[in-house]
């Protein structure tokens, strides 16, 4: 699975504007696998994104709409996209502004299928 997973992560990074993609444990915020450009702090992104999604999960559960699936967060100098894959794992993508979100989501779904 490891080789197929890395190939799938590499495919996500081939989308123009993607600076890195990580498979992260939702509970521990640790990196399971990653493909990131230089300058992306994988450990920091993983820990903070997992914390963010866990807090969002509490909000969505309280609102009665279940667990978050896909998250697209636009920031001043880029975007963070996360996708829940298999129980307690998620894919996290760091991208530049203007990235094709639909394409990234498609590649994340494909990568997620390799994890399941």
């Amino acid at each position: 699975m490891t080789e197929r997973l890395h190939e799938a992560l590499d495919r996500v990074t081939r989308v123009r504007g993607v600076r890195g993609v990580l498979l992260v444990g939702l509970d521990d915020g640790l990196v399971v696998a990653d493909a990131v450009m230089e300058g992306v702090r994988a450990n920091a992104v993983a820990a903070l994104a997992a914390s963010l999604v866990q807090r969002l999960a509490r909000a969505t559960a309280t609102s009665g709409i279940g667990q978050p699936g896909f998250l697209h967060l636009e920031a001043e100098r880029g975007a963070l996209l996360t996708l829940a894959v298999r129980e307690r794992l998620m894919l996290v993508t760091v991208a530049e502004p203007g990235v094709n979100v639909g394409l990234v989501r498609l590649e994340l779904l494909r990568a997620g299928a390799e994890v399941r």
Partner: protein
Amino acid sequence: MSRTRVVEPWLAGPLEHFVSESGARLTLILTPAGQVLAQHGFTRAVDVMSAAALASGIAASTGELARLLEGGAFRALSHESQRHGVFLSRFASPRGPLLALVVYGYESSIGLVQLFFEELVTDLAAAAPAAPPRAPVLAADFERELNESLATLFR
């Protein structure tokens, strides 16, 4: 009211920042011999003494195990139960090697604790004053210093 108590003032800022960012419930900073320099979250001196003794003992035994395995020293140890996680790490500081014991709950994670622990080590290195000249350690001095530290931590 702050739940952080320190024996030396330079420890306060970095420790408070670490606790606030990582969401740690309990934190101890101590020497490898078990002398507590700072704590956050403990309410009873006896708990600090027990945690410090256990942390020091665990660090010593895992260090010895690492020596037997000839793999160099272990850097950090983490353990998770259903309700709490425990992170124990040895780190270098301008005041010599120190240990940190961190207990965290569901509101944090080992990833967050590790992330902000790296910052804590950097912040402590920047905040530490020059080391005082080392005097020989006497048993009587150690006990007196231990009692003074506990008095400071729980006054």
